[in-house]
C-alpha cells in the first residue's frame, strides 16, 4: 500500500500559494480541519478562493481565515453567524458566490469523480439560474452545473491510516469525503492516525487513493455552535 503520512501541518501544506482555490470540509464548526485552518491563518499566504458550505464564526473555523484577511473570494451556501465576514462582504473586500447546498455538494463530488457537469433542479426559476443552461427532462426543468476546479482540498476525518484511508464520525462527515480527490492535492487531518492495516477495509468511508497527505492533528477544540439540550 502507498504511504501518505506526513509529520507536520507545514509539510501537509507544502506547495500552497497565495491566490489558490481551496476546498474546506466541515459544516459550520462540525468536522472542520482545525489544524490546517490554524496554520493557513498564520501563514504568509493570502487571496484564497475558498469553497466551503459555511463561513464559520468570528473566532473559529473558517472565521479565522476571514479574520486574518486571507480570503478574496468565498463560494459557499450559508454564510451567516460571522460578523467580520459580513463586514468584508458588505465592504466588497471579498467576492461571495452563494450556491444551493446540494449543488455545492454535487459539484465537489463531480470534481472528485471526473464528471465535468450534471443537471440539477435546485435553483430553477431563481437568480441562481441566471446565465446557466436550462433543460427539461420528463417535463421538469433543470440547471446545468459544472464541477469545481480547485488546488487544495483540506479535510478532517475521525480516524485515518498511514495510507490515507479515512473514517468520519457522525455528522462531522458532511462535505469532507466529497472534497477528497476533488482538488489537485488533498490533505487530510485526523484525530487518530493508525498504522496501515488497522482499519476494516469494509468500513472505510474514503479510500486512500483520494488522499495525498495525511497527518495527525492536535489540540482539537471541536467547538459546538449551538449547544442545545433537553428540558429536564
Amino acid at each position: 500500500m502507498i504511504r501518505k503520512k506526513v509529520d507536520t501541518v507545514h509539510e501537509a501544506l507544502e506547495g500552497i500559494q497565495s491566490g489558490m482555490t481551496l476546498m474546506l470540509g466541515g459544516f459550520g464548526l462540525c468536522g472542520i480541519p482545525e489544524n490546517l485552518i490554524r496554520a493557513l491563518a498564520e501563514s504568509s499566504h493570502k487571496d484564497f478562493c475558498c469553497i466551503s458550505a459555511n463561513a464559520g464564526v468570528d473566532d473559529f473555523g473558517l472565521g479565522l481565515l476571514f479574520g486574518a484577511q486571507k480570503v478574496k473570494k468565498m463560494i459557499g451556501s450559508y454564510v451567516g453567524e460571522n460578523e467580520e465576514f459580513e463586514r468584508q462582504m458588505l465592504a466588497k473586500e471579498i467576492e461571495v458566490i452563494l450556491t444551493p447546498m446540494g449543488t455545492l455538494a454535487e459539484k465537489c463530488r463531480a470534481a472528485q469523480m471526473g464528471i465535468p457537469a450534471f443537471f440539477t433542479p435546485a435553483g430553477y426559476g431563481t437568480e441562481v439560474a441566471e446565465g446557466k443552461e436550462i433543460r427539461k427532462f420528463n417535463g421538469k426543468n433543470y440547471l446545468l452545473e459544472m464541477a469545481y476546479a480547485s488546488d487544495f482540498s483540506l479535510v478532517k476525518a475521525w480516524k485515518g491510516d498511514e495510507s490515507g484511508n479515512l473514517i468520519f464520525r457522525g455528522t462531522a462527515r458532511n462535505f469532507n469525503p466529497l472534497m477528497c480527490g476533488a482538488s489537485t492535492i488533498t490533505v487530510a487531518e485526523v484525530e487518530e492516525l493508525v498504522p496501515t492495516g488497522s482499519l476494516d477495509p469494509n468500513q472505510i468511508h474514503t479510500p486512500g487513493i483520494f488522499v495525498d497527505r495525511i497527518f495527525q492533528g492536535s489540540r482539537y477544540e471541536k467547538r459546538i455552535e449551538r449547544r442545545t439540550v433537553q428540558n429536564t
Partner: protein
Amino acid sequence: MGLTKNQIAKRIAQELQSGYYVNLGIGIPTLVANYVPEGIEIAFQSENGILGIGPFPMPGEEDPDLINAGKQTITPQLGASYFDSSISFGMIRGKHIDLTVLGAMEVSEQGDIANWKIPEKLVKGMGGAMDLVASSDNIIVAMMHTNPKGESKLRTECTLPLTGVRCVKRIVTDLAVLDVTKEGFLIKERAKGVDIEEIKRFTQGKLIIPDEIPEIQV
C-alpha cells in the same frame, strides 16, 4: 387571536403519516418534531447528513460531531444513519423525502416561495432550501400570515427573490390552513376566533372561500 408558533407546528404535525421521512427547516418547522402523534413511525432527516434524529441530548451529553442543519446538538434515533452531503441531498433530489416543512417570507398564488434573501439586506445564503423546494412533491410552509410590517405574505406574485417556483402545496399560518390551487389560495381551515374577513384582509393574493370552513383543531 390566531395560532401561536407552537400551535402552527402542532397543526402541521397532524399532516405526518406513518412511514414518512421528513425534513424540517429552521424556525417554526423545527417545533413540529415536538408534536409527532403517538404510535406512528417517522424519521427526520437533516441535510447535513443524518437520517433518524432523536431528541436533544441530556445536559452534559452533547457531542460536537452530532448536529442538525440548524447546528444544534442532537442525538440519533434507534436505526439512524450518517452519510455525506451528496447522499443527503441525493435523498432530497431523488424524492425520497415524503414531507418538507419550511418557513417562508412570501408565497405566491402559484406556489412560488421566497425565503432566502431580502434585497439591500444582509444575505446569509440559501443553504439547502433551494434543493428542498425544487425536489419535494409535498411542501408545507409554516409561517405567520403577515410580515412584521403587517403586510401579507400570501401574494399574487412574490416581491422578494425566489427560492423556488410552483412548489408549495399547503400553507399553515397563524390565521389559517390554505392550499395552493390553480384558482388561488383555498382556505381549508381557520384558526379559532379568526373570522374570514380577517383572513381576507391579510391575504394579498387571490383567496378561495368555501362555504364551510372548519376550525383548526390543535
